[in-house]
């Protein structure tokens, strides 16, 4: 809560002004009954019509002043809440960008999105409501209590006891309510998950004609959410009637105690009447505080979730690394495990000089993508050394690595933006550079046939393009900034052989000095590499150029023979 509250600090003057205005408005409004009493108690008996008119006009002026102060105060509160939330959301997003991939996995993407949207919304509501109503109510309770003590301390003690009981009730109910709200939030998360799955898998669901099953699945989650929210709501619904009843019981007690004191001759009946009117004032204000309290506890739950991200320790700081080496890329005995159970990469060692090509081949799940992730420092190796540009990656800023690589990932999806922006990818590259990259990536030809060329809008997940077109746009993106190191992870899987071959030719022509890492299932894509790694269950079983592997690695030989039809090895 403290980190989030800290966002209010720069606006303390505005907050103070807004609160002061709300305070002033309350004072002005409280003056109204006083003037009213003045008219009835003083002016009317004296029959002074002028004084009546003057007092009436004064009331109007006060009412106008109150309205003005309230509107301005509300607007200031709205501005501060908006500004605080805007900055909070921005910082949260920035922090999300700086989290390491391991941390991203820990929070999970959907949870981070919900923190950015849902939780910041709750915090916004909290700031707004607290500024608008959080001052008036406590002020009235405090003022009322002081005045009642002045009238009759014993009766005020009754009142104090009732107030304490009321707050205790609110506290107890909220404590039962909050975990139920959390449970309800989890149930709603399930609903969101099914929605997201259905949006993403619409083709499969329809192709299998499983809409009815999906509706059932959704209905179950929907019903669970309804039950959980109802449960939470019904618990919280007890708060108002209970506190109302306690406060009213206090009223009864005041009359009862008052009756005895009047009987004993220590107080007037008139004082009871006066006391009762203040009591009503305090009662309303207490209920107002209860409302703010519920709002704050909801907002606090969200603030905690936001803070968990904001205060996450900075992972992957540059640290002292191993010795420098003449390798552009390399590993020495590098190991990594995503979950810490099984080694996804186990003791990998290889080296590659600048301008050389590395091929990686291996079955599904053998650690190819993991190896690349370590080179990019998306994750840090658990053991061993990873070199990029002659230095241990651990000694580098992640940002520093960013500009060196062009990467096509296996799972990447396009942005819902123009073709140009998908290639330039937020780097603000010139159209010439984008077109040149598209040409090398064999994408320019089809881009030209699109209705608006480079400015054609790409649908969500690139749905208006074919698999091969999407892949070529991603390759163009990787090439566009002329990186020194190019990583193509299964970048040819949706390309026909001819396009793939033309791509390789164009790469050699346009990127003569580039260091290339190719992960592919196709021997044809790998055969010209200076070094090919054959991976199996996280280990490099063989490495060497095509010819050597054909001779020494039976697996490689089998695959090559199968793919090339055995014809022309």
């Amino acid at each position, binding site marked *: 809560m403290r980190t989030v509250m800290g966002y209010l600090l720069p606006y303390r003057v505005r907050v103070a002004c807004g609160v002061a205005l709300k305070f002033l408005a309350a004072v002005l409004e409280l003056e109204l009954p006083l003037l009213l009493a003045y008219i009835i108690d003083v002016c009317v008996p004296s029959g002074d019509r002028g004084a009546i008119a003057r007092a009436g006009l004064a009331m109007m002026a006060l*009412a106008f002043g109150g309205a003005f102060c309230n509107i301005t105060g509300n607007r200031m509160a709205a501005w501060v809440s908006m500004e605080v939330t805007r900055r909070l959301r921005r910082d949260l997003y920035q922090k999300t*960008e700086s989290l390491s991939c391991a941390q991203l996995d820990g929070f999970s993407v959907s949870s981070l*999105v919900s923190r950015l949207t849902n939780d910041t919304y709750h915090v916004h509501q909290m700031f707004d409501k607290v500024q608008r109503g959080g001052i008036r109510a406590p002020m009235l309770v405090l003022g009322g209590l002081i005045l009642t003590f002045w009238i009759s301390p014993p009766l005020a003690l009754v009142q104090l006891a009732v107030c304490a009981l009321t707050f205790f009730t609110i506290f107890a109910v909220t404590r039962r309510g909050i975990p139920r709200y959390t449970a309800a939030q989890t149930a709603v998360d399930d609903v969101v998950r099914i929605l997201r799955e259905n949006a993403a898998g619409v083709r499969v669901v329809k192709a299998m004609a499983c809409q009815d099953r999906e509706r059932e699945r959704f209905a179950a989650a929907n019903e669970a959410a309804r039950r959980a929210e109802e449960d939470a709501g019904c618990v919280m619904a007890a708060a108002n009637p209970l506190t109302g009843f306690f406060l009213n019981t206090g009223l009864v007690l005041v009359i009862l105690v008052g009756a005895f004191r009047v009987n004993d001759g220590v107080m007037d009946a008139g004082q009871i009447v006066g006391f009762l009117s203040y009591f009503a004032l305090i009662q309303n204000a207490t209920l107002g505080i209860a409302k703010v309290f519920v709002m704050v506890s909801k907002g606090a739950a969200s603030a905690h979730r936001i803070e968990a991200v904001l205060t996450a320790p900075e992972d992957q700081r540059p640290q002292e690394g191993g010795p420098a080496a003449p390798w552009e890329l390399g590993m020495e005995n590098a190991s990594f495990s995503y979950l810490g159970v099984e080694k996804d990469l186990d003791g990998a060692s290889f080296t590659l000089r600048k301008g050389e090509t590395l091929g990686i081949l291996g079955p599904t799940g053998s650690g190819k993508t993991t190896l690349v992730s370590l080179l990019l420092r998306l994750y840090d190796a658990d053991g061993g050394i990873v070199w990029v540009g002659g230095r241990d990656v651990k000694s580098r800023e992640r940002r520093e690595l*960013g500009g060196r690589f062009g990467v096509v990932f296996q799972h990447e999806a396009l942005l819902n933006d123009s073709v140009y922006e998908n290639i330039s990818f937020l780097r603000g590259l010139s159209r010439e550079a984008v077109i040149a990259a598209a040409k090398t990536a064999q994408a320019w030809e089809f881009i030209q046939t699109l209705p608006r060329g480079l400015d054609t809008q790409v*649908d969500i997940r690139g749905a208006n393009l074919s698999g091969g077109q999407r892949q070529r746009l991603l390759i163009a993106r990787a090439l566009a900034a002329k990186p020194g190191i190019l990583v193509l992870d299964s970048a040819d899987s949706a390309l026909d052989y001819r396009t793939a071959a033309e791509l390789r030719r164009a790469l050699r022509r346009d990127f003569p000095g580039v260091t290339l890492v190719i992960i592919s299932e196709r021997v044809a894509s790998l055969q010209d590499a200076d070094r090919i790694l054959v991976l199996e269950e996280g280990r490099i079983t063989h490495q060497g150029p095509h010819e050597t592997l054909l001779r020494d690695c039976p697996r490689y030989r089998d695959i090559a023979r*199968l793919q090339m039809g055995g014809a022309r090895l």
Partner: protein
Amino acid sequence: MKRSLFRRLAPFLRPYLGALSLLFLLVLASNLLSLAAPLLSGWAVDAVGVHTGGVDFPGVFRNVLGMLACYGLSALLQYLVSARLIRVGQGISRDLRRAAFARMSQLPVEYFDTHPAGDLISRICYDVDTVNATLSTDLLQLVTSVLTVAGSLVMLLALSPRLSCVFLVTVPLSMALTSFQMKRLHPLFRRRSGALGALNGFAEERVDRQRAIRTYGVEAADLRQFEEKNDEASQAYYRADWASASLGPSVRFINDASLAAISMFGAMLYLGGALTLGSLSSFVLYSRKFSGPIREAANLLGELQSSAAAAERILDLLDTAEEPGDRPGALPAKKLRGEISFDHVTFGYDPAQPVLRDFTAHIPAGSLTAVVGATGAGKTTLVSLLLRFYCPQSGAITIDDVPVEDYRRDELRRRMALVLQETWLFGGTIAENIAYGTPGATREQIVAAAKAARIHRFITALPQGYDTVLTDGGDGISKGQRQLLAIARCLLSDADIVILDEATSNVDTETERAISEALEQLRRGRTCFVIAHRLATIQNADRILVLADGTLAEEGRHEDLLSAGGVYAGLYDAQWTRDT
């Protein structure tokens, strides 16, 4: 709220009308009880009297007990009402979400290509939530306020009809002011919901692209774009807030001004002898009772506005046109032979840009037919048309000599099993994912299918085996393994036509070899339609269709096409040409 909006919501409120009218009676009773209590307290104070030692204790006790009973009963009723109302509100929300989802599952696929999931989620979850908040709390307050105002008004009229004339001015004035402000606020709140929806959609997309964003080191530019959306949403939020900030206080002002007017005129009337002092003070007391609820109601109007905007977004989703349904008298598709023909089919997602041009091809029942061609030649489009995701602009597609449009759509789709480029897994167990599309499959059948798809060993190596729950759409599972699961899913179904769309492109060569054995089994008695780039896997196809520029360039068997030396031969040679 606009009337049309209310009328559109009415079907969802109707089932709860009985419960709502009962609630109305309960609210009435609860309010009467809480109005009676002050009366009793007055009598209790009267019973206390003003003399030392002269307190009428039995009287005090009687009235005090009455008060306790009133307050107790009123609290109980209040609880019952709010609990009941929460149930009603939640019921309505559930119905709305269910209806929205039902509509969503009937929308054509292109809707999902052009609408971010974040926006859909925003409508079905958050907008429904906003409407619910209004139904279960705001409405109750509004009814209570109206009741109190009505009760007080009756008392006021009884006390002094002449003085009540003040309200003839102020009440219509408040109403006019509020309706004016509501009209002004409506577009602002709609913009606010829209901007928040856009921000959510953006966050959904970009948080999911973090790996690429950090690889290219473009965090700063990404943050700038986020900031743009964030600023837009914040501004829209603030503008709506700024405008609605005046709603409560301005109504309150009219109210307070009327109090001042009443005090003045009342005092004058009293001096003129037209009113007693007691009536004047009662009148003032009641008119103050009047002001609280009016103030509350005015504050609620802001909430109602944002609810109306939310309700509109849900209802708009419900009104989106769904996929065209089956034509009357559509044929059942129980068992198909699987003979497919494309007859002069022309189609483009954008009609001006045809992907397929006058495409004609025949696929005999039970054959293994492969489609090859350069990327973007229209291979995937063929599958989309076959599955009736889209309709061709001209030409016809027939299965067993019946146009696909004449079958019942869902039954037709169920006769086809497919493995797409991207495998879709949902958050359930692996067994459930394999059995998807085959309800009632036994565990033995599932395991057999997994074994045939060569994914059994991978599954049993997982800690929970077949009961492993996939989270986040099976994020931890590699693309190849996902495809093997999809193949198992396909093997399990009893479809007559099998469609593999680049299904083997992400499985390593060894697995691919194993799969081709499994497919050999699957092929028996089925028509098999394969889109593949590895020409090695389709050499034994009965027929290969070569697509170029949206038309059928060549067709025939592997050897024939090779010796013909056309497009296919060029593609085939490319796969082992050394590039140097």
